[in-house]
C-alpha cells in the first residue's frame, strides 16, 4: 500500500494528472480484486458452514435427506462447539443491525433489497423512540413496517406486547424465535446466521452499516423459501390460513404440548432459573424423567403430567404427529443426537430422583451461566456442558408441564409463534443459554425479574462480580436510597422464589440489575488505560492527587470535579466507546442516572479521601475551620430558645441517632447517597418536632432546630460534607428536596459560623445569602445544551375549539409525561366534555402532527429547542377530525394500534 502511495506521489510530482488517474484506476482494480478475494473466501466459509445452516434450517422441511446423507456421523459435538446462540450473534453484530441514527429513508433503502424478516433497530425522530424496522413480504403491501419499542423505566418491550426484556438484545433475540406481536419472526442476515465463529461475526461487524451494501451480505446459495414464517408450516398446510387472514396475523394459541414439540426441536425453551425450585418440587411427585421424555418424542399423547392443561386442539396433533417422528428418524442430526447423548450420559445418575440435590443444582445453574458466558468468549467444546444437559431437558419440560406458574406457560402459548418453530432455524444456542433467555409474560413477579436476569451474560468473570456487588454499596452497608426502595417494593416475589434467590449465591451476580451491571462495566472500563475513557479518568484522578496547587479554593476544586464528571458523562453517552451502546442496554430515561452513578464510582470513589483532605486544608487555611470550631462550642452552650428554637427539640437519644446518620454519611462517596441521609436526618427532626407537640411546624421553625441539632452533634466535618454535596450533586437533583435541605443545612452551618453572642441568630447574614444565590445560579445555569431538564416542569399548550377559538395554558408537568397524560390534563384544564374526540398536536414547520399517546411532549420540545435553527412550534390540543381510530401516527407513520 505504501509503495503505491509513493508511486502516486511521485507521479503527482511530475504533475501528470492522467498518470495519477491511471494509478488510481489500477489501485481500484486491486481493491476490487481484494474484494473479490474476500468474497471467495466468504463463499468458502459458506460452503463449510452449509451443513450447519442446513441443520438449522431443518425445520423448514427442506433437504432433510441430504442432511442425513451428508452427515451421517455427526454426533452433535462438532456442531455444538461451533454454534453461536442468537444472543451471541446479535451482540457481536450490533454495529450492523443497531442503527440508532439511521433515518427512515435510510432504513427503507437498506431493507428494500433484503428478504422479508430482516430488520434494523433505529431511532425514529418522529416518534422520539426506538423502532424495530422490519422488512415485510410483498403480500403485506408496504415494504417495511416500524414497530415502536417501548422503554419503561426498567425494561424494553414491543408496543402491544406484554413481554418485557432487560435489554434490546434480549428483545431482538426473543423475536428471532418467537413472533409474539410481529407478523412473523425476525431473521438475521444469512452471513450472520451462518457465521461459525465469533471472529467471523466480528469481521462482519467491522463493516458496520456498510455490511448491507457489501458483498458480505450475500444471500444463501439455495435460498430457503423466501417467506419462511408464513409458508413455513409445511407440515400443516391448514395453518397458513390461520396465520394470515387478510394480511393480518391472527393470534394463534399454543398449547403446552406444542411448546414441548418445539423443544424437542431444540428451538426454544422458556426457562426462568428462578422457578427452578418451584418446578422441581412440583415434579418430584410426578413421573420419573425418562418417561417424560420418551413419549414427547414419540407421539402426540403426553402422559407426563396430570392435565391441568387444555387438551391440544386437533390441528395440533396434525402438526405434531408428522413432525415428531421425523425428528426421531433424524437421529443422526445434531440436535436430536445431542439430546440422546446427553440423556444417555446424564440420566442414569439422576434417575431415582429427577431433581438433583440442591447443591448440585446450584452448581449446575452456575455452570450454566458460566457456560453461557463462555460461548461467547471462545467456542467451547461440549464437554464442559455435561452437568447442564442432565438438568436442562428436565427444566424445559418442567417449564411447560404446567408446573409453577401456569400463567407463564399459558402466556407464552397464546403469544408466541406457532409451535413447531420451523421458522427459527438459527436458534441453536437456546439450550446453552437458557438462563439468559428467560422470558415470561403475564406473571408480574417473573416479569419484574426479567429485568434482573443476567445482562452481560458475555462477561466472563462471574466469580468476581459477587464481591463487586458487595463493594457496590458504597463502602458500608447502607439501606438503599429511597429510589431503589421503591423498586424493591414492586418486586412481587413469591416467598419460595425469594429463598431460592438466597440459595443461588453462585449465580447471584447474574441477578444484578442491568443498571448495576452497566455501572460495573463503566467502572471496569475506567480502570483500563488502553481506552480513551480509561485514560481520561485515570489521568484525571492522578492529576488531582498530584497537583494540589492547581485549585484556588474548595469550591473551585469541587466545581472542576463536577465539570469533569458531567463532561465525561456526555462523552460516554455520545461516543461509541461503550460497546454495545448504552441505549441498547438501558432505557433512555435511565441513561443519565446510570452514568451519574458510574461517575461517582469511578471518579469520586478513588478521590474521596483526597478531596476530603483538600477541603479540610482549604478550610484550615482560610480560617473557617477554626471559626466553626470555636463557634460550635459557643452555640452548644446556648439553650434552644437563644437559637430561636420555639419547637420541641430532639432529646439526647435522637441526637445520637442523628449523629450516627451523619457519621454514615461521611463514609459515603456518592453525593446522592449523602443527600439521602441528610434527608433522613431532616425527616427525623420534623418527626420529633411534630411528635412532641402535635403541631405541624413549617420551614421557618425548622432552620433553628436544624442549627441546634448540628451544634449538638458537634461534628466539624459536616461543613465539608455539605460543601461536597452542594457542589458535586447532579444538578438535576438540586431542584427537589435535596437542593432545599442542602440549602437549609448550609444556612444552619453558616449561622453557627457567624454566631456572635449579641446576634439574634435567626437571620442568615447577607453574605451567606449571597453565596447561596450565586451557588444556585451557578449550579442551575451552567448547562449549555438544552435538555429535558431545562423545560421539565412546564408545557405550554394551546387549546383550539370552534366555540372558544384559541386559548393557551401553561401546564405543570413531569419531564417524562406521556402525551396521553397531557391530553388528560388538558381535558381537565380546558373543561372538555368529550376528551376522546381531542388529541395533542404539534404544529411545527407549518405542518400538523398528531402525537401518539406514548410519546413524550417534553422530550420533543427539548429536541426542537436543541436544533441549531430555532423552530417555531406549538403544542395544540384540538379535535381529531373524522378519524375512525383513536390514534394516528403523524406523517404517514402507520397506524400501529389498529394493526
Amino acid at each position, binding site marked *: 500500500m505504501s509503495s503505491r502511495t509513493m508511486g502516486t506521489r511521485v507521479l503527482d510530482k511530475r504533475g501528470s494528472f492522467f498518470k495519477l488517474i491511471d494509478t488510481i484506476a489500477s489501485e481500484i482494480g486491486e481493491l476490487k480484486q481484494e474484494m473479490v478475494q474476500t468474497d471467495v473466501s466468504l463463499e468458502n466459509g459458506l460452503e463449510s458452514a452449509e451443513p450447519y445452516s442446513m441443520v438449522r434450517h431443518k425445520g423448514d422441511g427442506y433437504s432433510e435427506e441430504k442432511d442425513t446423507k451428508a452427515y451421517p456421523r455427526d454426533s452433535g459435538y462438532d456442531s455444538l462447539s461451533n454454534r453461536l446462540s442468537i444472543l451471541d450473534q446479535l451482540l457481536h453484530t450490533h454495529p450492523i443491525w443497531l442503527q440508532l441514527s439511521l433515518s427512515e429513508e435510510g432504513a427503507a433503502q437498506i431493507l428494500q433489497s433484503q428478504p422479508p424478516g430482516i430488520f434494523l433497530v433505529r431511532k425514529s425522530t418522529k416518534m422520539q423512540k426506538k423502532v424495530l424496522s422490519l422488512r415485510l413480504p410483498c403480500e403485506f403491501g408496504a415494504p417495511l413496517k416500524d414497530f415502536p419499542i417501548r422503554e419503561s423505566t426498567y425494561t424494553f418491550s414491543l408496543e402491544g406486547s406484554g413481554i418485557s426484556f432487560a435489554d434490546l438484545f434480549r428483545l431482538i433475540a426473543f423475536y428471532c424465535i418467537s413472533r409474539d406481536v410481529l407478523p412473523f419472526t425476525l431473521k438475521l442476515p444469512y452471513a450472520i446466521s451462518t457465521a461459525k465463529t465469533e471472529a467471523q461475526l466480528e469481521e462482519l461487524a467491522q463493516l458496520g452499516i456498510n455490511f448491507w451494501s457489501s458483498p458480505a451480505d450475500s444471500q444463501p446459495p439455495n435460498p430457503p423459501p423466501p417467506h419462511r414464517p408464513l409458508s413455513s408450516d409445511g407440515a400443516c398446510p391448514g395453518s397458513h390460513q390461520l396465520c394470515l387472514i387478510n394480511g393480518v396475523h391472527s393470534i394463534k394459541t399454543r398449547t403446552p404440548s406444542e411448546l414441548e414439540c418445539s423443544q424437542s426441536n431444540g428451538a426454544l425453551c422458556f426457562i426462568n432459573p428462578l422457578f427452578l425450585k418451584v418446578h422441581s418440587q412440583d415434579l418430584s411427585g410426578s413421573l420419573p424423567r425418562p418417561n417424560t421424555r420418551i413419549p414427547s418424542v414419540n407421539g402426540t399423547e403426553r402422559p407426563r403430567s396430570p392435565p391441568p392443561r387444555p387438551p391440544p386442539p386437533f390441528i395440533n396433533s396434525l402438526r405434531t404427529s408428522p413432525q415428531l417422528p421425523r425428528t426421531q428418524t433424524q437421529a443422526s442430526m445434531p440436535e436430536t443426537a445431542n439430546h440422546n447423548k446427553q440423556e444417555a450420559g446424564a440420566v442414569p445418575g439422576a434417575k431415582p430422583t429427577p431433581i438433583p440435590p440442591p447443591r448440585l443444582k446450584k452448581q449446575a445453574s452456575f455452570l450454566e451461566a458460566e457456560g453461557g458466558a463462555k460461548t461467547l468468549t471462545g467456542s467451547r467444546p461440549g464437554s464442559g456442558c455435561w452437568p447442564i444437559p442432565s438438568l436442562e431437558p428436565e427444566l424445559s419440560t418442567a417449564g411447560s408441564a404446567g408446573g409453577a406458574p401456569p400463567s407463564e406457560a399459558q402466556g407464552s402459548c397464546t403469544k408466541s409463534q406457532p409451535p413447531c418453530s420451523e421458522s427459527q432455524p438459527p436458534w441453536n444456542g437456546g439450550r446453552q443459554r437458557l438462563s439468559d433467555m428467560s422470558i415470561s409474560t403475564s406473571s408480574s413477579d417473573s416479569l419484574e425479574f426479567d429485568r434482573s436476569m443476567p445482562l452481560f451474560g458475555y462477561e466472563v468473570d462471574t466469580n468476581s462480580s459477587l464481591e463487586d456487588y458487595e463493594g457496590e454499596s458504597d463502602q458500608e452497608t447502607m439501606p438503599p436510597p429511597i429510589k431503589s426502595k421503591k423498586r424493591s417494593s414492586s418486586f412481587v416475589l413469591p416467598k419460595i422464589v425469594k429463598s431460592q434467590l438466597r440459595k443461588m449465591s453462585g449465580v447471584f451476580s447474574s441477578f444484578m440489575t442491568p443498571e448495576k451491571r452497566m455501572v460495573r462495566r463503566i467502572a471496569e472500563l475506567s480502570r483500563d488505560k488502553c481506552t480513551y475513557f480509561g485514560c481520561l479518568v485515570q489521568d484525571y484522578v492522578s492529576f488531582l492527587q498530584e497537583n494540589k496547587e*492547581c485549585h484556588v479554593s474548595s469550591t473551585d476544586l469541587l466545581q472542576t470535579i463536577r465539570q469533569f464528571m458531567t463532561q465525561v458523562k456526555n462523552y460516554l453517552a455520545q461516543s461509541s466507546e461503550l460497546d454495545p451502546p448504552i441505549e441498547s442496554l438501558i432505557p433512555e430515561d435511565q441513561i443519565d442516572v446510570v452514568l451519574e452513578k458510574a461517575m461517582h464510582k469511578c471518579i469520586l470513589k478513588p478521590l474521596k479521601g483526597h478531596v476530603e483532605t483538600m477541603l479540610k486544608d482549604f478550610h484550615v487555611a482560610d480560617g473557617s475551620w477554626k471559626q466553626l470550631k470555636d463557634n460550635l462550642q459557643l452555640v452548644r452552650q446556648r439553650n434552644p430558645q437563644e437559637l430561636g428554637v420555639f419547637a420541641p427539640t430532639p432529646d439526647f437519644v435522637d441526637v445520637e441517632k442523628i449523629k450516627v446518620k451523619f457519621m454514615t454519611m461521611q463514609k459515603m462517596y456518592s453525593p446522592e447517597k449523602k443527600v439521602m441521609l441528610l434527608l433522613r436526618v431532616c425527616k427525623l427532626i420534623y418527626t420529633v418536632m411534630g411528635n412532641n407537640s402535635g403541631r405541624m411546624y413549617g420551614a421557618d421553625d425548622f432552620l433553628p432546630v436544624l442549627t441546634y441539632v448540628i451544634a449538638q452533634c458537634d461534628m466539624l466535618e459536616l461543613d465539608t460534607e455539605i460543601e461536597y454535596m452542594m457542589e458535586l450533586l447532579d444538578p438535576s437533583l438540586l431542584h427537589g428536596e435535596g437542593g432545599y435541605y442542602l440549602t437549609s443545612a448550609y444556612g444552619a452551618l453558616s449561622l453557627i459560623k457567624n454566631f456572635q453572642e449579641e446576634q439574634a441568630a435567626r437571620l442568615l447574614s447577607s453574605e451567606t445569602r449571597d453565596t447561596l444565590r450565586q451557588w444556585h445560579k451557578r449550579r442551575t445555569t451552567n448547562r449549555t445544551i438544552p435538555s429535558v431538564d431545562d423545560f421539565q416542569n412546564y408545557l405550554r399548550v394551546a387549546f383550539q375549539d370552534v366555540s372558544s377559538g384559541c386559548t393557551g395554558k401553561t401546564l405543570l408537568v413531569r419531564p417524562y409525561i406521556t402525551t396521553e397524560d397531557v391530553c388528560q390534563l388538558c381535558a381537565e384544564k380546558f373543561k372538555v366534555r368529550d376528551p376522546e374526540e381531542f388529541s395533542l398536536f404539534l404544529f411545527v414547520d407549518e405542518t400538523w402532527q398528531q402525537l401518539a399517546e406514548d410519546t413524550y411532549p417534553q422530550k420533543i420540545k427539548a429536541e426542537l429547542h436543541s436544533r441549531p435553527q430555532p423552530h417555531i412550534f406549538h403544542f395544540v390540543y384540538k379535535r381529531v377530525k373524522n378519524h375512525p381510530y383513536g390514534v394516528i401516527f403523524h406523517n404517514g407513520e402507520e397506524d400501529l394500534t389498529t394493526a
Partner: protein
Amino acid sequence: MMAIRELKVCLLGDTGVGKSSIVCRFVQDHFDHNISPTIGASFMTKTVPCGNELHKFLIWDTAGQERFHSLAPMYYRGSAAAVIVYDITKQDSFHTLKKWVKELKEHGPENIVMAIAGNKCDLSDIREVPLKDAKEYAEFIGAIVVETSAKNAINIEELFQGISYKGLLARRPQLVALSLTMLCCCSLTNPSEVESRFLLHHLFSVCKIC
C-alpha cells in the same frame, strides 16, 4: 445510508481567544457575548457529512487558563485532530499557539491533524498578527490555517471541514487524490468553491511531502 466515523478533536490555545465560542458556533450555531471561562474542559459533538460518510466530531474544548494546562494532555492524547486557536488581536496568544504546537509535536499523537484558527477576524482593524505570519507558520508545520470569527460565523464550518478532509487524506490518500484530481478539473470551470480551496491546499501539502 452513510457510515459514521468518529473524529476526536481537541481545542487548545490561550485563555480568552474564543475556543468555546468557536465550538459553540460550530455545534449550536450560537454566540454568547458573556461566556465564562471554561473549567477543566467541556465536551460536545456534532455530525457533518463528509464525502460518502458522516463525520461525528467529538470535541473536547479545553480550558485555556494556565492552571489547567497540565490537564490538556489527557484530551489531546487520543485525538485525531487539534485545533489550536489564537486571537488575531493579541500577539501573545500567537506565541502561546507556538508553544502548543511544540508540545503537540513532542507529546501528541503521531499523526495528529493540526489546524490553526486565527479567531476574532471580525476585529481585523486592531489586528496584531498578520495573516501572512500565520500562513507561513502553518505551512512550516504542515497545518491547516484559517482565520475565523465565531461572532460572525466566518470560516467555522470550513475549519472543521478542513479537518475532515485532512483526516480523510491521512487515511485514504489515493481516494482523496482522486477526488482532488476531479476537483482540479472542475475548478477549471468553477474555481470558487471553498471546498475545492481546501482540497487544493491538501493537494499541495501532499505534493510537498513527496
